[in-house]
């Protein structure tokens, strides 16, 4: 069963079965890796924020660089109005990044390769952004669906397309992350299986491919976390600044 490339995505219970009423909320390997990722983030950034030296040490530099990286990302895409949402986007970026990166460790579980996890995150962002938009602009937020400078004839069509694209935001956001992570890990598993089945004679080619894929996957892990965060910033920008 272990040779099945999908086997790595299996969720299984760790410890006893926990039931809240009739729903099963048992601690699983997915929960374990969520906890590990969150703890790693908290420990690294807490250590990085602890010392207050003018010349930073490695952890402090890391935490301060990521802080300014995310701050720059937000101010570039969403402007200064998005400052109150900095900590949310920072947590989101770090959570997705660490989950992706922990998934790169052999035998580890990739939390973000599950559609339900990414979908919950994306749906939360979608709902939050929509609420922020309506709170800031009232019903004027609906102007988002009516782009300026469009001929009257095309307007009904454009509005429908805009609404569909707006509503598909959480799906595209979640599927992008989930599909990237799942496809990458499946591919690595498949090539790993080729190495075993071709043996010492022919196994070198898929092995080298596997090595290259590992590098690519680390890049993808970072890139998808970045894309996830920056798309959140862009949606937030739509809600805050509304210059469609």
């Amino acid at each position, binding site marked *: 069963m272990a040779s099945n490339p999908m086997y790595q995505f299996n969720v299984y219970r760790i410890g006893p079965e926990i039931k809240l009423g009739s729903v099963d909320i048992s601690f699983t390997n*997915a929960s374990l890796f969520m906890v590990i990722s969150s703890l790693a*983030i*908290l420990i690294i950034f807490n250590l990085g924020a602890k010392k207050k030296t003018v010349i930073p040490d490695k952890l402090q530099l890391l935490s301060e660089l990521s802080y300014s990286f995310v701050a720059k990302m937000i101010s570039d895409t969403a402007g200064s109005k998005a400052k109150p949402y900095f*900590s949310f986007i920072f947590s989101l970026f*770090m959570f997705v990044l660490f989950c992706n990166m922990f998934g790169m460790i052999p035998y580890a579980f990739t*939390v973000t390769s*599950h559609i339900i996890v990414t979908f*919950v995150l994306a749906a939360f962002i979608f709902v939050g952004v929509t609420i922020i938009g309506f709170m800031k602009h009232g019903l004027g937020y609906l102007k988002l669906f009516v782009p300026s400078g469009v001929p009257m004839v095309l307007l009904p069509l454009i509005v429908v397309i805009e609404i569909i*694209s707006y509503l598909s935001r959480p799906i595209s956001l979640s*599927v992008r992350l989930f599909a990237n992570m799942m496809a990458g890990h499946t591919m690595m598993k498949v090539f790993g299986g080729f190495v075993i089945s071709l043996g010492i004679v022919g196994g070198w080619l898929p092995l080298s491919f596997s090595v290259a894929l590992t590098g690519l996957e680390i890049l993808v892990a970072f890139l998808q976390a970045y894309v996830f965060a920056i798309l959140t910033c862009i949606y937030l920008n739509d809600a805050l600044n509304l210059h469609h």
Partner: protein
Amino acid sequence: MLKKIVFLLFVTCFACINTVFASESGGMPQLNPEFWISQIFWLIITFGILFIVLTKVILPKISDNLETRKSQILENIETADKQKEESQKKIEEYEKIILESKLKAKSYFNEAREKILNDISKKRAALEKDLDEEIGEVEKELSDVKNKSGEKINKIAAETSAELIKELIGEEVNSSSIAAIVEDQSKINKERKDV
């Protein structure tokens, strides 16, 4: 737009594959809803705790650190600028002092030179005066001697000629006429010499 359509197709494909494979090998574990609630529950708990701790504890510290560093660096730059200005002032002062001392040295040098030149010219004048006086005296003496020697020569010539005449003729000749003749002769000699 195209991407989104492709992604939607992807999802439906996965769903189809899942239903096909479900009967055989369990298919995609992602689409098995057995642990969905558990995953959502633990996601909310872990991400919530992460978000709260980051917001309340860690991020303010990091931004504080960045702010203090910024202000400290600005302060340092300010003090550095101040010190730079001060040092420039000091350099200017130093250059001024050097210029002044150079001028002073020049003036001292010039004074000393003038003094020495004055001394030299004074001493030279005195020396020249002395020399002139001595030359004058010597010239006077010389001219005296010359004048006197002419007369003496005439006298001696007159006497010797008188004695010679006496020896030759044995008669005494009027000495004044002899003197006149000698004088005439010496004048002629002189004229010849002059010519």
